[in-house]
């Protein structure tokens, strides 16, 4: 499975949520034209439209939380952050940096 950038991935849940929202918008437009015929004021969409909007909100929230990807650990000593390879540009590596302020810990894993 190719790894895509977070903004390029689309999920079924997200598309479904947006579809529900569009259908709710269309239903509300129809409801308003109905109100224009009977000459009443718009106080709120009908209850089934509100239910649809809530369902769309929940689905889109689920998509917003899961599609961009998982959080990655920022601790330097965790197991998935092990540096297992040297950089390929060995000629450009600099050693005169602030790393010499670190306490020495001879601890080979």
């Amino acid at each position, binding site marked *: 499975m190719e790894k895509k950038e*977070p*903004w390029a991935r689309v999920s079924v849940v997200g598309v479904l*949520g*947006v579809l529900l*929202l569009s259908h*709710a*918008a269309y239903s*509300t*437009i129809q409801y*308003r034209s109905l109100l224009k015929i009977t000459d009443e004021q*718009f106080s*709120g*969409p009908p209850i089934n*439209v*509100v239910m649809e*909007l809530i369902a*769309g*909100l929940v689905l*889109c*929230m689920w*998509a*917003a*939380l899961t599609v*961009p*990807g998982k*959080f*990655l*650990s*920022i*601790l*330097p000593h*965790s197991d998935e*952050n092990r*540096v297992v*390879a*040297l*950089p*390929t*540009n060995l000629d450009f590596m600099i050693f005169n940096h*602030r*790393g010499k*302020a*670190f*306490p020495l810990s001879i601890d080979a894993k």
Partner: protein
Amino acid sequence: MASHDESSVSRKKSSDSVDEISTFNAENMQINAKIISYSRTFMSIIGGVIAGILGFTGLTGFIFYFLVMAIMSVGLAAKAGFSAHPYFDSWNQILLDGFLGGLLSFVLFWTFAYDMVHIF
């Protein structure tokens, strides 16, 4: 084209106890911050569309925006497993970062949806 090496870039933080210098994997910090930003921006847009469909005008809409952002904060905290430590520097990054950033997108889509549904 220079090859993008895979080693993580460490960044030092100020010491907070004796002989204790904590560093963080800056690349992953950026990735986590990006994830939060994408999630909040997307939900600002969706919240704006919903506020427009429901016909909110004035203060009610802004209250709805803060409600959606608060729910997103809870959702993001749940995504991190309710422990900020392995993924973020502080809780503020999860709960408050980008809270107001989506406000302009929200207002844009709010007015757009309101016009589409209620005026035209």
